[in-house]
């Protein structure tokens, strides 16, 4: 069994790897890079060589290519920096040749001081190396897991710092009473820490790095966008490392090292760990999707279980026929039509048209989307429960129970249900995931700020990193849910052996 689980986990990891790699290759090779800049307001304002510099710089950040400005090239490959920086000098051309030999494409940029006068011009070079699909996939996976270490600050920002930072780990309790393993010289000050929030023990050592969002929320890591809170900043009274106590939205445990802090940051954070995530009043995108998903899931099971059971119990009677009609109607109706229909009905009961109208704090915002999500996954579950129950009721043990004189009710609830529920249990983790992916439509229609809405939104603006992040999360979740479903099934029914025994 252990061996089986291990193999399954390995296979799951392989499938996640395959899916994300294929998606990466598709997105990076098939979407023209011009599309990436269509929605970027900063790019549209630029022209001439500035636009070219900006473009290559951004494409470098997004992982399309390796971009080298003259400054980078001279620093890296020339002994005589000053001579190298003079355009078209001997040293300059030699360095360019070095990069050209490495496979870089050199572009010569001419910038005229005066558009009418072509004699006075500055010449600059830029080199870029375009990655192929395999290199992009390799770069993605090698940069995905980021492990923090105490040498981080000195290695990364060494040149910008006046003196090296002390490198050490220590246990301690900070001025706000948060205990944990701290670090000086790491990217994050708090490595492992305990606070009162679920799941009580947190870490900053291993982080997933999916790159930055672009062009919406440019420069913010994609993981931060979907996992940080939304809405207004929530300030609390807290003490800062400098001893100052004031109300602030900063979450100090998330602070990153800031190489060039401003005066205001230095006043609060003398140790330069000043790049903090703020606390917000509303839940994050992932949390929002999950609140809706879980609530609707509970509703689905609360409705579908008793209804499906009584349908099977009264097979061929009125309730069964009515149920079959409802199931067929719900399955065949386009989900969008169903959503708008229910939304229309809801408007008579004073339900808001869009989620942001009343926001997170009003229960009314939640009712309609949850009912709709539930109705979308209700019919198939009900159909399967009925199917399994009806199949089971023809089994020999049911006849035996009848012969022994058990009542119909007893047989159904004590014997058939227990057997029929096994395949249903298998699907429970899966339906948790289905809630998220089914929420694409519902979240878009109601403008719910969740992950389901984020995907079509980021597709529209060509936010590649965000698309890949969400693909990764959804794929991981669904692969995990299948695995958990199988494991849960063996717990419920010990007769089921997942690992095959013997040959064949």
């Amino acid at each position: 069994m252990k061996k089986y689980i291990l193999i399954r986990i390995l296979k799951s990891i392989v499938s996640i790897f395959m899916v994300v790699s294929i998606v990466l290759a598709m997105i990076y090779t098939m979407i023209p890079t011009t599309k990436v800049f269509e929605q970027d307001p900063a790019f549209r304002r630029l022209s001439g060589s500035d636009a070219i510099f900006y473009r290559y710089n951004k494409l470098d950040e997004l992982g399309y290519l390796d971009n080298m400005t003259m400054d980078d090239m001279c620093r890296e490959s020339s002994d005589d920096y000053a001579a190298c920086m003079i355009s078209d000098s001997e040293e300059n051309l030699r360095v360019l040749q070095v990069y050209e030999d490495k496979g870089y494409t050199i572009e010569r940029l001419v910038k005229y001081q005066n558009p009418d006068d072509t004699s006075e011009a500055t010449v600059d070079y830029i080199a870029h190396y375009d990655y192929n699909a395999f290199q992009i996939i390799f770069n993605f996976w090698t940069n995905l897991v980021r492990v923090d270490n105490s040498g981080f600050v000195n290695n990364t920002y060494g040149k910008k710092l006046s003196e090296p930072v002390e490198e050490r780990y220590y246990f301690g309790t900070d001025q706000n009473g948060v205990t944990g393993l701290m670090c000086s010289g790491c990217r994050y000050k708090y490595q492992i820490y305990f606070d009162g929030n679920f799941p009580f023990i947190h870490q900053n050592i291993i982080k997933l790095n999916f790159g930055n969002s672009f062009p919406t929320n440019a420069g913010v890591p994609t993981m931060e966008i979907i996992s940080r809170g939304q809405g207004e900043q929530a300030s609390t009274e807290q003490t800062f490392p400098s001893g100052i106590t004031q109300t602030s939205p900063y979450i100090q445990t998330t602070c990153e090292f800031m190489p060039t802090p401003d005066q205001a940051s230095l006043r609060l954070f003398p140790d330069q760990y000043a790049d903090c995530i703020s606390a917000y009043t509303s839940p994050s995108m992932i949390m929002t999707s999950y609140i809706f998903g879980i609530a609707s899931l509970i509703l689905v099971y609360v409705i579908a279980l008793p209804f499906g059971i009584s349908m099977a119990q009264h097979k061929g009677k009125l309730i069964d026929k009515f149920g079959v009609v409802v199931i067929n109607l719900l399955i065949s109706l386009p989900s969008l039509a169903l959503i708008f229909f229910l939304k229309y009905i809801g408007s008579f009961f004073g339900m808001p048209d869009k989620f942001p109208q009343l926001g997170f704090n009003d229960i009314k915002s939640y009712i309609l989307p949850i009912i709709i999500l539930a109705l979308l996954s209700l019919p198939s579950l009900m159909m399967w429960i009925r199917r399994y129950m009806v199949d089971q009721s023809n089994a020999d043990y049911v006849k035996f129970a009848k012969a022994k004189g058990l009542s119909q009710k007893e047989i159904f609830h004590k014997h058939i249900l227990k057997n029929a529920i096994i395949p249903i249990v298998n699907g429970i983790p899966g339906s948790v995931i289905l809630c998220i992916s089914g929420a694409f439509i519902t979240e878009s229609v109601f403008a719910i700020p969740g992950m389901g809405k984020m995907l079509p939104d980021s597709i529209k603006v060509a936010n590649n990193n965000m698309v890949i992040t969400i693909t990764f999360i959804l794929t991981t979740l669904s692969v995990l849910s299948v695995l958990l479903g199988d494991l849960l099934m063996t717990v419920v029914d010990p007769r089921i052996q997942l690992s095959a025994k013997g040959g064949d």
Partner: protein
Amino acid sequence: MTQDSRFTFVKVDESASEHIAAPQYSYWKSVFRRFFSSKVAIFMLVLIIVIILMAIIHPMISGYDNLNMENINDPTSRFLRPSLEHLFGTDSVGRDQFNAVWSGTRTSLFASFAATAVTTIIGVIVGMFWGFSKRLDVIMIEIYNVIANIPYTLVCMLIMYTFGAGLVQLIFAMSCTTWISTAYFIRVQVMIIRDRDYNLASRCLGTPMSKMITHNILPYLISVIMTSISRDVPSFISSEVFLSYLGVGLGQSYASLGRLVQDAVKYIQSAPYLLIFPLVVAASISVSLYIVGQTLADASDPRTHMI
């Protein structure tokens, strides 16, 4: 003993003896008899035929072009409520919605039928071999595990995103992963039938695999395939509608039910009729196709012909 004049010899009629041994049975006749015994199915069949005919014929007459906005500068022809002149009203640029809806229905129907055809053909062929060959099963089950684990909507959106908007891309996006679930569905059925005694006997007698598939197994699967088709077409209609609604479906040059819905959502308060008509047509197509398909699937199962 002399010949008894009360009896006469009759010729042995081979065909009559056949007749007595096996009662008159025609597969397709039974299928139709079974199908037309359901009144709901007949009604739905008429409904879907009317919709399909309208979708084919009406755009030919009206010559509707989604890019033609000749009334865009004429404020009096915008947002006209449904009337005799404009049965479904007009939209924000003065296009007649009755024409638009039928043109859109044609696109949506075409896309979903094409996607179903692709899915079913590939799915059935692959599923057959998959169910038969144990060596293929080892590889295919792994591929299935990878593909089936990815949310379908995600796949559709990603493919439309990378290949761009268009009808061919849409059909490709909708069918490129669904075929494997059809294949898996067929594989399970084939595996159940494969080891039945009559197939074992057939194999012992030296029937080649291709003949086993076409003669022994395929007829048994007709109702299963029908069930799968009747589920696929409405689900593809639904997919087209929401993909276009999310803005990753067809481009501006096509009218489709999803695009009409997407355009109409902005005017849900001021002109709800713009939204209602495409949704009603989409719902009618889905429901009627589903019910017709399910009834036909039931009817095409020979086991229901007994009584």
